[in-house]
């Protein structure tokens, strides 16, 4: 198979000017199956959703080419979608900030103060629960946060509160807690991957040269783990834009996030209307990805540990 030979042999020593069009095509051949999946199972469906978003769904649950901008206008005109989207952005930002605020010291502790084995163990301890069902874990949170849940029962038993707490009771704070729970490991992995590569002797050198610890931290450490921080942010922020299960399971009447609103249409086969809203979210995500493409490194996160 000439294909592998082109991919395997480097451009150095004996290779001549193998820039013929056929040979270039041959080199690209192994990528075809993957590209086929990308194009036919991702780009084309997204394109179709894009087309549908300009159509309308009739009473028979079929999208018909009644070209209009109404589905997009709905997002901007009807207020609720824009407000809910902003609320989702805020929730995502809060969860991301919290995950970073806890994840950074957590990862720092692992890298600085523990041995390789302990690091492995603790990282696994954080990750293994994620091999159980997402749904069952979130259901378990209901039992903790509710009016008669474990949290209230314990707090009342030890006398900290007299009346059950209401803030977690099927409300936004509860959604916040569970989302932080779900997405913390992603942030941790990204930060750990980045911190692990950092050469800590630089901090010692900086302090030898007279810098205070916080100065060394701010001017030496943070810039170098910037990519890791951005990756952590993206791994937490973006998926939350698509979260609907957690608000449904632990949220209340006012906890709907943008994905819940979109799904209300899609789950009733109102494809055209739902597609437009979904495309808007997808466009937003794509924009973020493009802006941060240089700093975002998935592979570091995934191969760490």
């Amino acid at each position, binding site marked *: 198979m000439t294909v*592998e*030979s082109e991919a*395997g*042999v*480097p451009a*150095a020593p004996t290779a001549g000017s193998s820039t013929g069009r056929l040979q*270039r095509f041959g*080199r*690209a*051949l192994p*990528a075809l*199956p*993957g590209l086929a*999946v*990308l194009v036919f*199972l991702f780009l084309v*469906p997204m394109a*179709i*959703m894009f087309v549908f978003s300009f159509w309308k769904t009739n009473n028979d649950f079929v*999208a018909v080419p009644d070209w209009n901008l109404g589905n997009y206008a709905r997002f901007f005109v009807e207020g609720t979608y824009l407000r809910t989207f902003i609320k989702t952005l805020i929730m995502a930002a809060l969860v991301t900030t919290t995950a970073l605020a806890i994840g950074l*010291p957590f990862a720092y*502790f692992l890298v600085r*103060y523990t041995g390789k084995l302990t690091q492995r163990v603790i990282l*696994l*301890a954080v990750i*293994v*629960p*994620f*091999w159980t*069902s*997402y*749904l069952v*874990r979130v*259901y*378990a949170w209901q*039992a*903790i946060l509710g009016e008669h*849940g*474990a949290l209230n029962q314990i707090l009342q038993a030890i006398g900290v509160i007299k009346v059950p707490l209401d803030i977690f009771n099927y409300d936004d704070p509860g959604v916040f807690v569970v989302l932080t*729970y779900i997405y913390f490991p992603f942030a941790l992995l990204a930060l750990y991957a980045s911190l692990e590569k950092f050469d800590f002797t630089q901090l010692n050198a900086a*302090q030898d040269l007279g810098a205070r*610890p916080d100065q060394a931290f701010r001017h030496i450490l943070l810039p170098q783990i910037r990519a890791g921080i951005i990756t952590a942010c993206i791994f937490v922020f*973006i*998926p939350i*834009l*698509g*979260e609907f299960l957690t608000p449904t399971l632990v949220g209340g009447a006012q906890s709907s996030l943008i994905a819940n609103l*979109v799904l209300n249409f899609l789950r009733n086969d109102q*494809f055209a209307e*739902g597609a437009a809203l*979904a495309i808007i*979210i*997808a466009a937003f995500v*794509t924009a973020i*990805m493009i802006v941060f*493409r240089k700093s975002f490194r*998935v*592979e570091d996160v*995934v*191969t760490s540990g």
Partner: protein
Amino acid sequence: MPVSRFARQTRWSLIVLTGAMLVFLYLPIAFLILFSFEDAATPGLPITGLTIHWYQVLASDSAIQNALLTSIEVAVVVTIIASIVGTMVAFPLVRGGVRGAGVLRLLFTLPIMIPGFLIGIGLLIFFRQGLHPLVDVQLGLYTVVAGHLVFTIPFVVLIVASRLQGFDRRLEWASADLGASPMRTLRHIVLPLIAPAILAGALLCVTLSIDEFVITFFLIGPQQTLPLYIYTQIKFGVTPEVNAIATVILLVSLLTVALGSLLLTGRRRLLRRPR
């Protein structure tokens, strides 16, 4: 070692923070396991009694077992295909001198970051209304596999590409110098050395596919995977049996990892023995 004079306080506060976070992470797990032993028809407080009944129900519940088996089947197929296809993509992406490799890399990252329900809905619309005039695509495990591939292949691509990027090509040149054909070089030098990356990707595929709910939900036919089974238990919904199966899965995962680490440490210790 840190030289700050706040070292001890820093160290202790970090230990407390890490410990507290670990407790937070395991709190629902503890309840999850507790409820699996609960003597009630719905998992939740108050606990009125303990029983192993649900594990017995689990052992004889063919529906939930079939769902689990289906999940595993799908995950295995997805992993095999994604690993092969993803690795194949990585080569030209890194070495092929393809123009716009940066754009391609971005495109391959996109499916990972687009929320799952968009992919699910997009594919559903595609299969159902887009392709419908041309070809009659029936929803089933094939469509589920297709949906899973969309977001697993990019992971493999990115991981293997990253590994390939740092690959020392002098090894390949040396092999060529010694007379090996490109094919042999690939099989005996390159692939074994990037195998860890491929395996890391494969492991990730299994993990992602097995608990995949959203995309599966939209694309499945008259079959059932485990996450779907748990969710669509409607009208008289979830019993502690699902807690039981979640606990079982947790235990199996922990045992597997423990076993793997043990074997690994054992092997390493073996290798360190002086000759």
